[in-house]
């Protein structure tokens, strides 16, 4: 029998709906769903979203590592042994020897449970891959406007008169969002793209500010310099709703466009023109992604963009806003659920005694750990040093996603216990002591929070393969085996209900409501009869005094700068037809055949100098490793820059130097040399 079930795309953070078409319970394809934020439209990954579900590589039984490789064991045995080992390690080394990687690929309920397990075991060592994408956003926005999330909705985009798209290539990372961006352009909006590469988004731009990787602050400060000098700022907004403008004036004073040109490589005239266009538009939106955040100055980069929007009064009104675009389907939710080492659900600081006691009370314990835990890169370092002994990884593949691959492998091999819960045997799972087979998106229920804070229900369409189970079921079993209080959830709705108690922003977002309202609800939603909040900061900012903080920042160069040995700057990017560590997308024949292999973009000038032909094999070498791929000679990158999609393991090259505040690694800038291998 053919059936259509409402699905929620498992790929990026856009939050697209579609129908999953099933025949006798088996997924056979997708069909546009008339509605949702995507208005029925889909990108190639969305179109291919059921392809990996029945792939023969799916994990179907729990696995245990033995001297002869993996053997299948029963769920009871696996959970019992993992629980015993976790408790034993805690007993021997203390709770902070345990670490947990939660997942932006899993539901709110699942992220909620994993961080709850960590905290009830006595540690705040819980984090997830937002650390590698938007940790800078979380820190930067929390300090400036008080809420670490997209301030407006997608529907604000067509109402804007200028879009400043910074370090972000929606044409490839969120193709469906381009729908809204092109609609803005139809309505006469100017589009300014800031990117070291000439991306497909630049095709649609009025201005392209092609800056040198890692020089974002110099550029943003120069734009603010012009806006202040020309008195184009929103005086009323600054006076009534912000603090710190005077300090900004002092800091940006020296960042003349001419000074910034020397640092960024962007012509002073163009900087001036972009600044004037942005400030005089009247309604503007600033969008950014990994090109801005993955730097040692990531948090400062975000603050600079927030300042830029604030001085123009582009926050809290129709057609304005700060738009950090989320890369995974539940980055926002995983952050909201506190798969972060310093907060409880709803961004309640672990150091806040009153809030901590309240969460403890709901969870049925006296108190919870009050010392902020370790972030992902810090847990990896602690494992390498032998301080972290056990790591429980749910739905992440750090060997491919984290910088400096060799270091990650060394760290994981050093653990006494590595548990990986996933849908495929990833590169990381191959190193695990235990592998637990999880259900994929279409095989379970729960809520997911898309980029615009929209919480949507994920309906179940098919059964999981073999003995695979939804992550929340696995975590409930584990919680019980660990003897943790109140882990008797009988269905996922029990957990959703508990979230509404713990996270203030989610109070009115019940499972019943989400099942009824397929379009979902945007948080904050303080009560069940509240319609949700499409726009933040309308009257006051989420700061203690309600005013936004304008926080000036100074430009600092990236951690590595080119020298004689490593003359090129290496940067990484994403492509439209593959997704992150390839686990899902490369198991779709349609995607795999079109986006088949790694390559490196190199400018025609550099290629000529080195005698490299288009399509020829080259080796890229950094201080951390080497990587072989084909050369793609293109004018899309400037001289001196090498750009690689990171999906095929290019993180063996990238730098793990951290932003001191956000602890995000500088994945976007490393220095490298290029060696010609020859042959195609």
């Amino acid at each position, binding site marked *: 029998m053919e059936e259509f079930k409402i699905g929620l795309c498992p790929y990026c953070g856009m939050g697209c709906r579609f129908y999953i078409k099933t025949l006798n319970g088996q997924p056979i394809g*997708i069909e546009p769903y008339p509605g949702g934020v995507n208005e*029925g439209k889909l*990108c*190639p990954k969305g*179109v*291919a979203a059921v392809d990996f579900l029945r792939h023969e590589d799916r994990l179907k039984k729990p696995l245990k590592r033995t001297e002869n490789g993996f053997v299948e064991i029963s769920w009871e045995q696996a959970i019992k042994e993992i629980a015993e080992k976790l408790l034993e390690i805690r007993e021997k080394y203390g709770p902070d020897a345990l670490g947990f990687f939660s997942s932006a690929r899993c539901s709110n309920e699942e992220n909620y449970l994993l961080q709850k397990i960590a905290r009830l075991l006595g540690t705040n060592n819980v984090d997830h891959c937002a650390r590698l994408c938007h940790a800078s956003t979380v820190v930067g926005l929390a300090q400036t406007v008080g809420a670490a999330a997209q301030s407006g909705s997608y529907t604000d985009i067509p109402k804007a008169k200028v879009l400043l798209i910074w370090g972000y290539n929606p*044409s490839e990372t969120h193709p469906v969002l381009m729908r809204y961006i092109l609609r803005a352009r139809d*309505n006469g909006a100017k589009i300014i793209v800031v990117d070291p590469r000439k991306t497909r*988004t630049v095709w649609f731009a009025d201005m392209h500010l092609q800056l040198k990787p890692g020089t974002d602050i110099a550029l943003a400060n120069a734009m603010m310099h012009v806006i202040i000098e020309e008195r184009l700022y929103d005086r009323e907004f600054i006076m009534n709703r912000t603090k710190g403008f005077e300090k900004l004036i002092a800091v940006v004073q020296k960042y003349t466009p001419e000074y910034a040109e020397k640092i960024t490589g962007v012509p002073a005239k163009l900087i001036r023109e972009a600044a004037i266009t942005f400030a005089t538009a009247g309604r503007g939106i600033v969008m950014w992604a990994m090109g801005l955040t993955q730097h040692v100055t990531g948090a400062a980069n975000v603050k600079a963009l927030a300042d830029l929007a604030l001085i123009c009064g582009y926050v809290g009104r129709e057609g304005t806003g700060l738009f950090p675009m989320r890369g995974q389907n539940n980055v926002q939710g995983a952050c909201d659920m506190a798969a972060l080492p310093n907060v409880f659900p709803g961004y309640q600081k672990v150091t806040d005694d009153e809030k901590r006691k309240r969460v403890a009370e709901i969870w049925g314990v006296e108190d919870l750990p009050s010392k902020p835990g370790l972030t992902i890169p810090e847990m990896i370092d602690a494992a390498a040093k032998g301080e972290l002994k056990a790591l429980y990884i749910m739905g992440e593949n750090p060997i491919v996603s984290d910088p400096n691959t060799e270091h990650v492998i060394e760290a994981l091999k050093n653990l006494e216990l590595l548990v990986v819960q996933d849908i495929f045997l990833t590169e990381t799972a191959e190193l695990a002591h235990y592998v637990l087979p999880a259900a994929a998106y279409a095989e379970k229920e729960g809520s997911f929070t898309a980029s615009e804070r929209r919480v949507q229900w994920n309906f179940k369409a098919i059964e999981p393969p073999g003995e695979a189970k939804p992550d929340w079921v696995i975590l409930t079993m584990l919680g019980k085996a660990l003897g943790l209080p109140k882990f008797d959830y009988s269905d996922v709705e029990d957990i959703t209900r508990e979230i509404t108690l713990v996270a203030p922003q989610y109070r009115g977002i019940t499972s019943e409501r989400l099942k009824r309202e397929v379009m979902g609800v945007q948080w904050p939603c303080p009560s069940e009869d509240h319609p949700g909040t499409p726009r933040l900061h309308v009257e006051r900012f989420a700061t203690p005094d309600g005013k936004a903080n304008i926080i000036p920042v100074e430009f600092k160069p990236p951690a590595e700068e080119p020298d004689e040995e490593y003359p090129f700057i290496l940067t990484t990017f994403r492509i439209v037809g593959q997704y992150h560590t390839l686990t899902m997308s490369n198991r779709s024949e349609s995607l795999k055949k079109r986006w088949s292999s790694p390559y490196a973009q190199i400018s025609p000038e550099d290629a000529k100098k080195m005698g490299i032909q288009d399509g020829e094999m080259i080796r890229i070498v950094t201080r951390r490793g080497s990587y072989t791929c084909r050369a793609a000679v293109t004018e899309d990158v400037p001289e001196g820059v090498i750009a690689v999609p990171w999906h095929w393991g290019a993180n063996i090259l990238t730098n793990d130097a951290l932003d001191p505040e956000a602890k995000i690694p500088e994945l976007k800038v490393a220095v490298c040399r290029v060696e010609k291998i020859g042959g195609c």
Partner: protein
Amino acid sequence: MEKKLFINLGRCIACRACEVACEKEHGISFITVYEFRDIAVPLNCRHCEKAPCIEVCPTKAIYRDEDGAVVIDESKCIGCYMCSAVCPYAIPIVDPIKELAVKCDLCAERRKEGRDPLCAAVCPTDAIIYADLNELMEEKRRRKAERIVEAQRKAVETLAYFG
């Protein structure tokens, strides 16, 4: 008037959702996205008004169906590829299994159920639209008129401000 498939080159982001969708629907993709510097061209059968493929087909395998789509009747096709040779876009291709000419049929099965061709249904930026030309142009004209009104209001406001 019947609906047609329109391609707006100024909106294609080269994401190839149409290609993947077409392949899912038909097993082979009848649409191909060609990427160039600054622009991409998604190309498929244009279902021309004066379709040379229909004219040239010696077995009359190619005909126009009730919605105006140019389609091939497999049982009549002899695989001579005259259609490919005369097509201004070189659209009909060889089906690797049947060894016959195959091409876009505007998702005949979907149209029967009142649904749009899948490439147009999924295209995220409306670079591919399945619509009635007159209605489409009317919508476009109306949007342009709204822009004129907006510009006019702005001009009046500016005058008032300086006046």
